[in-house]
Each structure stands twice: as C-alpha cells, then as structure tokens.
C-alpha cells in the first residue's frame, strides 16, 4: 500500500485518491475474482476513453494510440473472459471497480467538453497517469496476492502490455508539448 500512496502523492490523480479512499479496504486484500473484475473494469474504461478520443480528436497520433488501446485492451479482456470460463468462475463486482467506474464517468464528462489541442493534451496526460496508476496497482497490490497460477500469469502478461502503453503515452505527452 505504501507504494500506491506514494504514487498518489506523485501524480495527484483523483482516480488513485479515490481508490485508496475506498480501500481503507485494501486492494491487496481482494480475492482473485474481485481482482479480475477490477482489471476488466479498468480495461473497459480505457476503451471508453479511446472511443471518446476517436470521436473528438483530429490528431492522427492520438487516433493511432486510441486504436491501439481499443485493440489491446479488448484482446486482454477476451483472454481474461476465456480463462474465467475455463475456470468456471465469474468476476465479482466490488467497491474498487465501482470507484473506478464512478471516476471514469466524471472524467468522460470533463473530456467531452474539451476540443483541439486542449483535448489532445488532457487525453494524453490522463492516459499516462492512468496507465502508471493501474500498472502500479497491478504490480504491487494484485500480482503478489493472486492465488490462481493461470490468473497470475495473465496479469503478468497484461502488465508487460500496459507498461508498453505507458511508455507510448509518455512519448505522446512529450510530442504534444
């Protein structure tokens, strides 16, 4: 938890603030099926942001990045659902998933009002912060606590993908300065 709190201090992201707020309830104490639900929710939120970017932005680099987010997060979610089906399990909704979703609604409302470079910069910066925050959560709170070996393996594969996204987002932020 300490590392997650430090991240909040560094990034100042509202999303993470509310994650910890909800998790006096500790994210490290979620079970595998709750963790799977959080990851699935986080993937879908990023897909939603990407669709918004495709609708509002006219910047080809933003479009390219957004299409990659849709493609990759959809692929990871398909893998996750296939694994849960194989394990005959269903993801369990929980307070962290609910907080993520509530924050995303607020952020979508805010981004929907932006246009041009203001939108592009906000989207790119948010993507960088979002991936940093979620990657930190996955690396430090989820992976060490997942019990099922196959679920853990999928999360490790997912983390590699999302670190590449984080790097891509950082390049995008740099290019928009």
């Amino acid at each position, binding site marked *: 938890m300490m590392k997650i709190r430090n991240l909040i201090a560094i990034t100042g992201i509202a999303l993470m603030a509310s994650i910890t707020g909800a998790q006096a309830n500790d994210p490290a104490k979620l079970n595998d099926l709750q963790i799977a639900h959080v990851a699935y929710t986080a993937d879908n939120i990023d897909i939603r942001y990407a669709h918004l970017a495709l609708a509002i932005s006219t910047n080809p680099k933003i479009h*390219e990045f957004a*299409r*990659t987010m849709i*493609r*990759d997060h959809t*692929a*990871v979610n398909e*893998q996750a659902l296939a694994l849960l089906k194989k394990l005959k399990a269903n993801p369990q909704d929980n307070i962290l998933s609910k907080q993520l979703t509530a924050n995303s609604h607020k952020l979508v409302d805010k981004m929907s009002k932006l246009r041009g470079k203001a939108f592009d910069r906000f989207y790119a910066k948010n993507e960088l912060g979002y991936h940093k925050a979620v990657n930190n959560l996955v690396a430090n709170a989820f992976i060490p606590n997942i019990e099922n070996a196959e679920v853990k393996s999928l999360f490790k*594969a997912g983390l*590699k*993908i999302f670190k*590449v996204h984080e*790097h*891509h987002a950082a*390049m995008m932020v740099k290019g928009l300065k």
Partner: protein
Amino acid sequence: MRRITIPRREVVGWAVAAFAAAVIPFTIPVVAKMTPPSTNHIVEIQNFVFSPATLKVKVGDRITWINKDIVPHTATAHDKSWDTGNLKPNDRGTVTVTKDMFAGYFCRFHPSMKAKIDVQ
C-alpha cells in the same frame, strides 16, 4: 546412288542440341552456384520484442513473423514500403527480401518495438 540431302535448318538444330548436351552438364552446377537457394527465416514476436533484433538475409529469402503475444502486432518498414499487415495472436506474415528493401522496421501499433533486416 541417290544423294540424301539434309535441310540446313536440321543440321543447325542437331549442332545446337549436340552442343547443349556437351555443355549443359558443366554449366548447371556453375549456375546453381551463382544463385543459391533462398532461405526461409523466422522472426518471433514475444513480450513486445522482435527476435532476432537483427536478421541477416539475402535477396530472394523469405522472412516470416510469428506473433506469440496475446495482442496484435505488425512488422512495418519505417518508410512504410513493406508491411506484414495486422498479425493477430498466433498469426504469421511473410515478406520476400528484395534488393532495395528498407532495413529498419517497427510495430505500427507499438512504435517502441523496433528491429532491422541486414540484406547481405
């Protein structure tokens, strides 16, 4: 005695055939030596890395990329002159090496993924 005349065209034809029969057996190995058979190379894409990062090839060889990740990738020349197209998980994409093939390539979806082809 009746004289048999052979049309000039046939004489030339036999001469060419005889020359070819004598010369070709010696020529073929030489030709084969000059144009060695093409090779099929494999580049694996795994954990967002092209492996090998540098592939030595010669003109006429074929390069096949295999995507072993769980998300789609591409192998695309930096100047966009060649492209495997979208490679879904476990898909393969093949390109034949040409003389002026652009060496550096990347994944269009994940631009930090880079590698190169070394045409000998």
